[in-house]
């Protein structure tokens, strides 16, 4: 067939497809998914979510099991949002003997009704740094939280968690307002630092948290003895709120929105590759078996029955024990076992098509077996193939997650199945962490629906007789 003819057919197909609303919906969702995959580096909230999904240090500043930010809209008491403050003001004061005092001041505008869980300072230091961290409250009170002398740094990150490292200082601060008696029940470990620092300074603050709203100055100060070789730079502060991100975090503090976006490309790839390749193999296998019949059919059906009756999971366990589990080997193994899914239906359909007069007519015209199979039989089975692909896309994704459940998933990537699996292990449903379960579940369902919509619309178009109805 000439290319002009093919082009004509495609444009004709597209004109028909445009009339199918559900098909367009499916196509739009699929295109959106593809756009997300293409622009993933731009929209990923945590840029290294792909490579550091299992790196605890990467996620350590996040709150654990925090609901999404937008849940604030529905709650009376607004929770502080996890945010990252990078805009710092640097001040230098020259001291005697060449040394200088460097001060970074970062502003945090606190408006919530609950205290942040933690305030974490990050600063890069080189050389020997005596670091002081303090906080200046909107009411003018300044609390010096922490002092530390770091030695022998070479542009390394210094991390100071106010909740941990500023506990003693905060306890000292509350003592100024509360009597010994009131604090009898508390110790420096049972009081949360955030509740003290972000509270109105008054008697009774230990019992009831009353937020002191306004701009807090977070100050990091260091004496640089040898400015030529030592310095501090690039400070940032993470205020760990009790809500975080678009979709919250899981119990390992990972940002679920990042995980979901990063998992989309794998979901598409697992779904596409597994379903397309396995359905193609299955459809061709079924057609060939039915078309040639006789001994060919018997042998092919025998092989089919053997493959179909092999339990997949034990084989998968053995394979992943021998080879390093990798997403591509997983897909390959799934294809090896999934192709049988469409064989029987295709074979029975092909047995029927084979008897059609136009197949005989094509033979009488001198058509080769290959031509009859590909020009006359395969096109009839395309609608079924698409439906079958649509059906096996979600099952491939779910299957991948079942494999993850056994610890056989690809540990270098993040998939929706793995997120769901983590949620199950973390008892997310029991703990009411719905944002950990519903989004990946919905994503998998939506992905399946998308393919089903597209498949059924194509079905209508590829059956010319249905058009007139």
């Amino acid at each position, binding site marked *: *067939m*000439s290319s*002009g*003819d093919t082009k004509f057919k495609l444009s004709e197909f597209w004109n028909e497809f445009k009339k199918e609303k559900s098909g367009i919906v499916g196509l739009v969702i699929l295109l959106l998914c593809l756009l997300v995959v293409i622009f993933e580096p731009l929209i990923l909230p945590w840029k290294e979510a792909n490579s550091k999904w299992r790196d605890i240090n990467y996620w350590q500043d996040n709150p654990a099991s925090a609901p999404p930010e937008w849940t604030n809209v529905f709650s009376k008491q607004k929770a502080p949002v996890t945010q990252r403050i990078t805009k710092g003001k640097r001040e230098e004061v020259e001291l005697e003997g060449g040394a200088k005092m460097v001060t970074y001041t970062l502003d945090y505008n606190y408006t919530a009704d609950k205290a942040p869980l933690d305030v974490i300072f990050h600063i890069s230091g080189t050389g020997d740094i005596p670091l002081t961290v303090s906080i200046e409250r909107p009411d003018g009170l300044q609390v010096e939280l922490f002092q530390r002398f770091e030695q022998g740094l070479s542009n390394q990150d210094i991390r100071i968690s106010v909740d941990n490292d500023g506990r003693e200082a905060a306890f000292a601060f509350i003592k100024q307002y509360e009597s010994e008696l009131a604090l009898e029940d508390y110790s420096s470990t049972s009081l949360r630092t955030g509740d003290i620092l972000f509270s109105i300074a008054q008697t009774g603050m230990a019992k009831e948290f009353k937020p002191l709203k306004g701009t807090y100055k977070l100050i990091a100060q260091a004496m640089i003895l040898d400015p030529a070789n030592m310095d501090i730079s690039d400070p940032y502060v993470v205020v760990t709120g009790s809500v975080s991100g678009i979709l919250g975090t899981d119990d390992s503090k990972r940002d679920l929105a990042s995980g979901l976006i990063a998992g989309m490309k794998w979901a598409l790839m697992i779904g596409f590759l597994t379903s397309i390749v396995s359905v193609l193999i299955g459809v061709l296998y079924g057609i060939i078996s039915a078309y040639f019949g006789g001994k060919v059919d018997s042998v092919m059906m025998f092989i089919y029955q053997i493959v179909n009756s092999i339990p997949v999971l034990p084989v998968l366990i053995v394979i992943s024990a021998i080879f390093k589990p990798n997403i591509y080997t997983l897909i390959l193994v799934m294809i090896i076992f999934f192709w049988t899914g469409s064989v029987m239906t295709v074979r029975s359909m092909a047995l029927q098509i084979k008897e*059609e*007069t*136009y197949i*005989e*007519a*094509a*033979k*009488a*015209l*001198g*058509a*080769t077996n290959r*031509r009859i199979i590909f*020009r*006359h039989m395969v*096109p*009839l089975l395309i609608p079924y193939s698409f439906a079958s692909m649509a059906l096996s896309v979600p099952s491939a994704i779910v299957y991948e997650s079942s494999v993850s459940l056994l610890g056989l998933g690809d540990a270098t990537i993040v998939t929706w199945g793995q997120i769901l699996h983590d949620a199950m292990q973390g008892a997310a449903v029991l703990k009411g962490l719905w944002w950990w379960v519903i989004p990946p579940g919905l994503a998998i369902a939506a992905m399946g629906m998308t393919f089903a919509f597209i498949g059924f619309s194509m079905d209508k178009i*590829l059956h*010319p*007789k249905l058009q007139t109805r």
Partner: protein
Amino acid sequence: MADVIVHIEGLKKYFEPHQSLIQSIGKSGPKKVIKAVDSISFDIVRGEIFGLIGESGSGKTTTGKLVMKLLDPTEGVIEFNNEDVTKLDKAGVIEYRRKVQMIFQDPYASMNPRFKIRDVLEEPLIIHKIGSSFDERQKLIIKALEEVKMMPAEEFMGRYPHMLSGGQRQRVATARTLILNPSLLVADEPVSMIDLSTRAEILAMMKDVQEDLGLSYLYITHDLSTARYFTDRIAVMYLGRIVEMGLADDIIDNPLHPYTQALIQAVPEPNAGNVGVVKELPIFGEIPSPANIPSGCRFHTRCPYAKPECENEAEPELMPAGNGHFHACRRWDQIKRAL
């Protein structure tokens, strides 16, 4: 001897019913063989229309498929242009099919419903690599459509088969076969599914084409009236065997075999006063199963003139009755006298 295009001798086609592995081990009894075509011989002369007539189940379609090489014969010889074509290789079969083409009974079923008329007609060109470019093939398609009087051709090319009437479909089916320039056309009941009103038109078209291109036809039908109108010679088949063969006029006007006589009497005549008149058929019952062919003359079970010898003695072969007329009835002269 006239210029014979197809020579068939002792052609047999037996079907063996499918048996599973277990069945074939378990039962050791004689296999039930379906004798669809049981040793037939005839010649088709170049440029003639040869009719093959019989009830359903008489093996006429199987014969057509054997000639078409859609089925392999169990035994016998098919010669095409004096060459044996029963044992052709793949390339040979494709080459053979360029010269021998077939028109099917159901013009709708014989075209892929997903193919537009253009695709239907382009397929043989692609298969046989005729016409190197899209435009060249386009011209051939238009020419073929005009040949079967489908005009304007361009308009029909974009349609699907289900958008055409039965007559139009059969014209397209004819065009599809003619596009390859064959020398023999096997037409398997080409007008039986078409309205009576368009039958004559289609047959006239086929005849025109035949005269224009010097084609030969193997016209398979159960309809004696079109056979007389359309064919030069007729062979009457019963249960896989030819029982009578001769010039069309001879067969219709002077049938020698009781089966042919019965067929001719069965044709309804649209004459005044025939309303409600049911013709009494001289033969009765259904055609016996080809898996269980009666002994002796295979027609004796339904023959009104059957005598014990018909059942007990060997089956009669085709006998000449002069003027190229053959029959296979041992009692033909007695029957003739009785009439």
